Structure formats: C-alpha cells, structure tokens
C-alpha cells in the first residue's frame, strides 16, 4: 500500500492508503476526499481533478502528458507549473508519501 496526502485549499489534510496501479483521482473519490470531482471518470475530458503537486514531489511525479496542458487551460482555478490532472498520476511504489494540494474550486 502507498500513502497519499491531499491538502485542501483551506489547509485541511487527509491521508489515505491506496494500491499501486491506481491513480490519484480515483484514490480521492473512493476515499471521499473532498475537492476532487473527476467528472469524466479519468478520460482527460474535464479538468475537475486538477491538483498542484507538492514542490518536493514534482520531479518524481513528472510532467504533464500530451494533451493534459490543453485540458488544464479549462480548469476553474489558476494553473501553476506543478498543476496536474490527478487522473493522469498513476500510483507507483516511488510515490509512497506523495503530497498534493487541491485548488479552491474545480467547477
């Protein structure tokens, strides 16, 4: 199992456990973490699972994939260099302890 911490815009943090192979969006939904909506189910067709990867984890998580940048332009909140669609962050053993920050709004 791998631990992931979600920090909401108001500072509240929630840490949950998930399995390798899952993604950061689904993990949030299946653990009722507020602040991630994931309307399109992970098809990269909406921007409602937007998150900011914690600076300390940015390199390990890696860059936006092809097409993700265009979709992020449609996000409700500001985009930063660490912005990712959380459905596109696949959980690997190296991401144990990952911290992501959630935007104020997804819709």
């Amino acid at each position, binding site marked *: 199992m791998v631990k992931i911490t979600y920090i909401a815009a108001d500072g509240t943090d929630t840490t949950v456990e998930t399995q390798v192979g899952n993604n950061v969006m689904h993990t949030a939904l299946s653990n009722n973490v507020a602040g991630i909506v994931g*309307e*399109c*189910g*992970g*098809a*990269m*067709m*909406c*921007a409602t699972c937007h998150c900011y990867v914690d600076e300390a984890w940015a390199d390990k998580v890696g860059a936006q994939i092809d*097409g993700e940048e*265009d*979709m992020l*332009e*449609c*996000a*409700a909140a500001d985009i930063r260099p660490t912005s990712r669609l959380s459905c596109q962050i696949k959980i690997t053993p190296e991401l144990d302890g990952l911290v992501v920050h959630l935007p104020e*709004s997804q*819709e």
Partner: protein
Amino acid sequence: MALAPVNTEIGMVQLTHDPYPIYRKMRTQTPVVRVEQIKRTFVTKAAMTRMIKDTPEVFSSNDPNTPMEPAFQAHTLMRKDGLEHRRERMAMQLSFSPKVIKQNWAQLYRDITQDYISRLPRGETVDLYKDICGPVSARILVHILGLDGATDDQMLRWSQHLIDGAGNFGWDPELFKISDRANDEMNAHFDGLIAHHIATPNSSAFSVMLNAQNPIPQSQIYANLKIAIGGGINEPRDAMATILYGLLTNPDQLDEVRRQDAWGQAFEEGVRWVAPIQASSRLVLEDTEIGGYDVPKGETVMTIQASANRDEDLYENSEEFMVFRDQNPHQAFGSGPHLCAGSHIARRTVGEIMIPALFDRFPDMSLADPSKVNWRGFGFRGPINLPVTLR
C-alpha cells in the same frame, strides 16, 4: 450466464408520457432488459450506467445506425470515440470553461437575463417556458457560439429541427427534409460569419475554432456548432423549467434556498430529479456482461440516466424533489469522455443567474395551477408549459 430478459409491453407512448414508474419497476425487477419495441437494451441502475459511460473501449459512441448523421449532415463528435472525438471536442472546449465564462461572459448573461425578465408583465400569468426559459437560453447561446445576427426564433427552430431529426428513429423522410432545411439555413448563416471571426478573434466557440493554430476541418467546425445548438437550448430550457416547478411546488424548500442562497444545490437537484437528457445509447463492441447478464457484441445499450438519478442505492426518497440532500452524485451530465461539455455554462447561467434573477424580480410568483403543467419526453424530458402568475 443468460441473456437479459425481454420486455415486449413498453413502447414510446408510455415512455414519452411518464417513464418514471416504468424505470422504478425496472430497477427492482429487471435492471438490464431488452426492450423489444425500442430495439435496445435498457440499463437503469446508477453503477451500471456509469460503468458503461466510463468504458468506451467496450461501449462505443460510434454507432452508425442512428439518425444523427442524416439529421446533422455530418458524422459528429457525439458519435466518435478516442482521439478523433478528443480533437474535435478540445477545439471548442475553452469557450465553455469556467474561467472564460466568468471573465468574458458572466456580466453579459446577467444583462441578457435582466433584459428579458424586465419585459414580463407584473400581476399577469405568463408561460415562463415559452417566454423566458427558451428565448434566454437561445440568446445566451448566440453569444457563446459567436452566431451574431441569429434571432431567438431561428435558434429555437434550428435546435428543435436538429433534435427532431436526431430522434427520428422511425426514419421518416419528411423529418429529414425539415432538418435539411435547417442545415441549409445554418450553413448560410455560418458562411457569412467566417470573415468577421477571423478579422476580430474573440472567445466565442466559432472564433476559437477558426483561429486555432491547427484548426479542425470547416465541415467539423460546422458540425460542432450544430451539436452545440442542438444541445445548448432545449437542455437549459428544460432544466430551468424543471427547477422552477420544483421550487414553486415546494415553498418550504424555496424559502430555505433563499435563506441559504443555495441556488446551486437547487440546480443540481432539479437536473437529478428530471434529467433534461434522459437516455443515451452505446454500441457494444465485444461480447460482455452487465449486471450478471450476457450482452452480445452488436447490441445497442441505452443508459437511462433518468433512472440512475433516482436509484434507491444512492438516494433516499429518490422520486421526490429534495434540494437539501447529503450527497447528489447524479449523472444528468453523463460521465466519461462524452460528459456534457456545457455543464459549466448550464450551472452558471441557469443555476446562478437565471433562476435567482427571476425570484428576485417576482418574489411571490406562483404556479397558476400545478396540475396544468404538462411533462413530456423519453430521450429529452421536461415541462412543455409553465404558467406562472408574476407577483
């Protein structure tokens, strides 16, 4: 495993009149059922409809056997999968995004709404469905899409003719003649606007698509605009009429919505209760299984989101309009890659602007006679009249 049971009794007439008692029974007794008269397998439980929408590799939108292609004179993004669908959708998505709505459009939407509402006669009974829900939706869409010069009547008529054509499962040639004429008019109107949008780029969908670095073909730009016309008027109109009906027939909830400024929740509950788009179809690409039944390759399944939205597994008193629910994970906008592209616009315009503005101007408005409100529709559903006394 076995094939799904077959229902030979249910047809368009009953479904168009009132599908909800039928779906309630299906959810309990036959959640996966082949409906012989519609020639489709109906799926009525929320977990199943979501699974189908979220699994496009097995349940494809690319169904060549629908009247959509003749109605729109194009193979549209609604009926495509994968990268092709993504490219055409992304070509206009930015125009529908929360940021663009807030920055470029919100004030305009408010002004349009005020303009139409200010013309309503206080003290009289008017049909808000006809006088407000449809025309305001049409006017706002002219601006979002960049269809300068189109009248409300033209927009409403084009939208209706496209939808009638797309729903022409009886393949009546007369209906296609009507949608052909609408296509001719739309094409001519679009042709006349290209130079303007290229000369003065703006954030309308037409302009964004034309001025893209790597634009999609003009035929698909036109098809996208028509999809937006077909999907961008009737749905907000029906959502608005439904929400108004729900609030006006539940004055206690209306008071509480006002007190908490909970218009957003009222919007979500309205579209859950009677989803403007009630059902969608997907073509089964390989032999598969849904809810314990074999579903063979080549079958067309209908996800009934109208029913998923009243699934007892997710909602208490699911048949009731209840704004203040603990959770409301409805599928009125669908899910998966074909998730409604206009959901943000609908939430902003109908939920945050149009409905509060109406109650602000006419705080004591009331339904003249709730029993006189008629509801209709199987694929698309909502009230078809809303006589309200304005006070």
